[in-house]
């Protein structure tokens, strides 16, 4: 497997460990979607699809696709036993009302106050926020899954986001190919580092102050 894919799998596998039995989880498009393939087998975790159901299941076999059943990206999916369908107002009542336990999203930038920018780059990329603002505002726990730095090697974890915010002060956890970082009232706490990474490397590639936990884990 190529190294980039291995990095992504390490990120999503670590995130999947965070969900307790019975959790309701919403996964964003892109890397967050991969979390679904690594959910711990010893727990029942229900996935929420914001276009209108709980119990989001894997893509059906070729020829078994149902045009009435797609995920938030418009791709054919399935529903698992125990899931149910509802309309958009109910779906976002579930999200905004604090009934989704975890949401996992990608990020362009995230800062030490837990603010997130992931929905637009003015003048370049303006796709619309879709359900992202509601998810980040409403979910009990917001987890960011992303590469630690941009393609050009610039830090994505900053003292203050420079791009338009998706939400202010809502992020709880940041998991990257280098680090597992918790957003706390006193700032960013580096709790774990990835296999092969060093604390110095994480600090060098982070644009905000990191408090290093007394007992540093590995993932």
């Amino acid at each position, binding site marked *: 497997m190529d190294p980039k894919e291995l990095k992504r799998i390490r990120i999503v596998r670590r995130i999947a460990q965070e969900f307790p039995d019975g959790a309701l989880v919403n996964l964003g498009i892109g890397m967050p979607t991969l979390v679904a393939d690594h959910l711990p087998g010893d727990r029942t975790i229900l996935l929420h699809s914001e276009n209108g159901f709980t119990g989001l299941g894997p893509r059906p076999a070729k020829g078994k696709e149902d045009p009435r059943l797609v995920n938030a990206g418009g791709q054919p999916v399935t529903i698992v036993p125990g899931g149910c369908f509802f*309309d958009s*107002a109910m779906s976002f009542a579930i999200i905004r009302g604090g009934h989704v336990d975890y949401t996992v999203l990608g990020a362009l930038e995230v800062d030490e106050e837990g603010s997130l920018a992931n929905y637009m780059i003015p003048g370049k990329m303006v796709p619309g926020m879709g359900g*992202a603002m509601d998810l980040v505002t409403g979910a009990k726990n917001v987890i960011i899954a992303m590469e630690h730095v941009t393609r050009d090697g610039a830090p994505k974890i900053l003292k203050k986001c420079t791009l338009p915010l998706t939400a202010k002060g809502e992020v709880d956890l940041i998991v990257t190919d280098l680090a597992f970082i918790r957003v706390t009232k006193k700032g960013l706490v580096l709790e774990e580092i990835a296999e092969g990474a060093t604390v110095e490397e994480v600090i060098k590639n982070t644009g905000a102050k990191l408090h290093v936990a007394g007992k540093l884990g590995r993932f």
Partner: protein
Amino acid sequence: MKPVLTPEQAIEAIKDGSSVMAGGFMGCGNAFTLIDALINKGSKDLTLITSDTAFPDVGVGRLICQGRVKNLVATHIGTNPVSGRKMNSGEMNVTLVPQGTFSERIRARGAGLGGVLTPTGIGTEIEKGRQKLTIEGREFLLEPPLGAEFALIKAEVCDKFGNCFLPMATKNASVVMAMAADYVIVEADRIVEPGELDPDRISIPGIFISAIVKAALPAGNLADANLSWTPKN
């Protein structure tokens, strides 16, 4: 009993410049037959209120690509690159609304409410021009109701009183849109006699429906279009 009309008859009152809500999410649940009729009629300068602009060749995406929309209110346009191009060139005015706010604003119009208070958008650019209220110590944005002259709804089954069954993930914003437009047209795969639908399993009460049209295009043409699409990270 509600009138069962041809697609052309049902959309007759939709004029150039009319405001139209279209149910559907990434094409899933778009009223393909009615959208097709609007395109054939040559309707233009529409104000389109819809969750997203789907894909260039699918459902509401076709209205965008053919330049029929002057004002767009949506939550996401990223899967149809033509929407972004028309927004940037100034050819189409685009208002982007968070999806939960979108649904609740429409529901507010249909439910007779003066608006909704939502925490979504606090601390972001969405705040601009919005009134902020503090309720029980938490800040909320006051979002006004959102309605339209027409709504285009896709149902799998509809009885002649207008009661609709929308299966699976096709319900999306159609349920609230049916409440919030002056004239609501439903396109159904099957039109049945009153009593044939279980009154306990109705997705949209018939009282909201103005006219019924038999679907001519199968929902099935959606899957092929979507199968060829893969999200970019």
